[in-house]
């Protein structure tokens, strides 16, 4: 239900609005990618931009990710502020050198003399049976490599503010938006992602996590779609008398370790929910940032609800078996053999 004065937007529209507002202010901002002009982006996040800004600044590209992402690096170093779209994060394989050896390293290689103000937008996530080359998250893959900021909004308010912040940042920002949150009807959409978005421009700080639900007994940390699963699980847990706190990471790089540690210090228990592959990734990093800091705050061994270490299967029953969901989060709590909540 939309209340009076409420301006509910999808993440797709929030991203497009932030981009348009920055394009009006800064002639250096321009967009390149596949199907981002006339089509408005496969996920709608550049819709309307071609009409307002024309083909000089809203550029459909050939299917040449290495070339146009590399070109964005060059343009960014030369005074522009390019936004590029990698349609599915899964496609990073054909262009990763431009991303992690150029975009992510040139500031450092120049001893800080260069700026690389660019945004790489890319869609993540599965759950709709698109198979193993169109359903991955790869959060950990990007966050692992130094030199690029990485953000992943869970709702339209953060999506707009993060996009504005990313466009004003002088360092490269990888902007990972989840297909299931995008508000495109054809992918099904998590309603919780479509929220009030102020019309005027604002920023959401990159590198700051948010406590989106307060609780006492357990901290559930997640990002993107996982935040909504965590909130649903928290509701179920509430029915069992368990008070769950939910932390939305918002950014993976920089990672707001303070907020995570403060929450776990309060609750004493930690569940990490990550749609990315379990091993060597976000879930391990979150647990490590707590345990290496102060293991004495933990009343139980931490748990993770993540995608098992297998390629993403196509068949619905198999994919759903692998994906995190609220029931698995509740089960993780049950398995913790937790003390009775206070």
């Amino acid at each position, binding site marked *: 239900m939309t209340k009076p004065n409420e301006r509910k937007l999808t993440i797709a529209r929030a991203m497009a609005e932030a981009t348009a507002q920055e394009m009006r202010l800064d002639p250096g901002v321009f967009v390149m990618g*596949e*199907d981002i*002009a*006339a*089509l408005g982006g*496969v996920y709608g996040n550049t819709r309307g931009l071609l009409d307002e800004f024309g083909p000089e600044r809203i550029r*459909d*590209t*050939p*299917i*040449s990710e*290495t*070339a146009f992402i590399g070109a964005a690096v060059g343009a960014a170093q030369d005074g522009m502020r390019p936004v590029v779209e990698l349609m599915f994060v*899964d*496609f990073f*394989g*054909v262009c990763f050198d431009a991303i992690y050896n150029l975009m992510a390293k040139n500031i450092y290689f120049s001893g800080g003399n260069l700026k690389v103000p660019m945004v790489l937008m890319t869609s993540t996530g599965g*759950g*709709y*049976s*698109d*198979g*193993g*080359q*169109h359903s991955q998250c790869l959060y950990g893959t990007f966050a692992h490599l130094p030199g690029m900021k990485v953000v992943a909004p869970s709702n339209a308010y953060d999506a707009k503010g993060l996009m504005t912040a990313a466009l004003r940042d002088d360092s490269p920002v990888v902007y990972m938006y989840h297909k299931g949150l995008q508000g495109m*009807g*054809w*992918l*099904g959409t998590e309603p919780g992602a479509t929220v009030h978005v102020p019309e005027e421009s604002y920023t959401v700080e990159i590198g700051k996590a948010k406590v989106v639900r307060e609780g006492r007994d357990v901290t559930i940390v997640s990002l993107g779609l996982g935040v909504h699963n965590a909130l649903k699980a928290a509701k179920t847990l509430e029915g069992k008398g368990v008070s769950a706190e939910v932390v939305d990471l918002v950014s993976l790089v920089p990672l707001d370790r303070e907020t995570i540690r403060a929450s776990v210090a309060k609750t004493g228990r930690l569940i990490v929910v990550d749609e990315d592959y379990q091993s060597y990734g976000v879930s391990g990093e979150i647990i490590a940032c707590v345990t290496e800091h102060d293991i004495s705050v933990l009343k139980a061994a931490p748990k993770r609800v993540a995608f*098992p*270490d*297998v*390629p993403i*299967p*196509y*068949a*619905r*029953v*198999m*994919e*759903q*078996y*692998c994906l995190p969901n609220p029931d698995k989060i509740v089960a993780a709590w049950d398995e913790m053999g937790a003390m009775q909540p206070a």
Partner: protein
Amino acid sequence: MAPTRDEQHWMYRNMVTSRRFENAIAKIYFEGKTPAFNMANGPIPGEMHLSDGQEPVAVGVCAHLNPEDVVTATHRPHHQAIAKGVDLDKMAAEIFGKASGLSGGRGGHMHLFDTDVNFACSGIIAQGMGPAVGAALSRKMQGKPGVAVAFVGEGAVNQGGWHEAMNLAAVWNLPFVCVIEDNAWGISVAKSAATAVATNDVRAAAYGIPGTRVEGNDPFAIYDAAGTAIARARNGDGPSLIEVETYRLAGHFMGDAEGYRPEGEKDGLFAKDPIPAMRARLLKEGTASEEELAAIESAAEARVDAAITFARDSADPAPEDALTAVFAA
């Protein structure tokens, strides 16, 4: 090089089978997806890329191939799979995500693998090129017969990987043919907006190999061009590049509103539908009688019906089987 009468019947049969198969898939695809179109729902979830209109390319090329020859296909693989002889029951079951599917439901429509006929796909643009070139290399090194064909869309030629594989095939003189299905569109981006040359046959010059362009989506002309290229590869004379003008009668994927197409373009394409055109030609040239064509069509229909029934009636995979087959048995 002209197809024999039997080959012409084979080509027509496979075109019709492919089209009937796509029609059946298209209909079933919308089950569970109306009134609200949500890709996650229905017996066939996920993206669906149909090949309606592009059948001549598949049959014109695969008419020259044996099961031992290698084909790599794209995100739009059904017509090629059918022409290469992929098991239709198992292919349909894979598309339905069933345990009896080619990959037990792990792959899906963009990842059809049939080792019996050396068929594989990749949903990443141009990434079938490397494996096809590698198969050609392997045959050459092992002294085993067989050629490798990579089918790609015209959008794929602007990938670095496409160029690298072409050059590798040429510099090592491998039994490889790249077939470009030029349907004029890469999703919403027109070929003319994406590719600096009007036709890609000229790119063959960059690799010092023969390049041919076939106009008009004509199965006979495709047969001719492919026959020359494949014979050349079999003889050890090296790779070739063929670009075929073809038409995408469907959207890029099912659910695509195709707002980017110029007004009336689709009507023009339907008027050039290659299946009625081939039918008319077979009749006109007396290569097939009305009765023979009707028999081919009803056999194709029955074959497709049987495959769809097989797929529908098959069991779902066990969910936990998702964790198996990651490494070789």
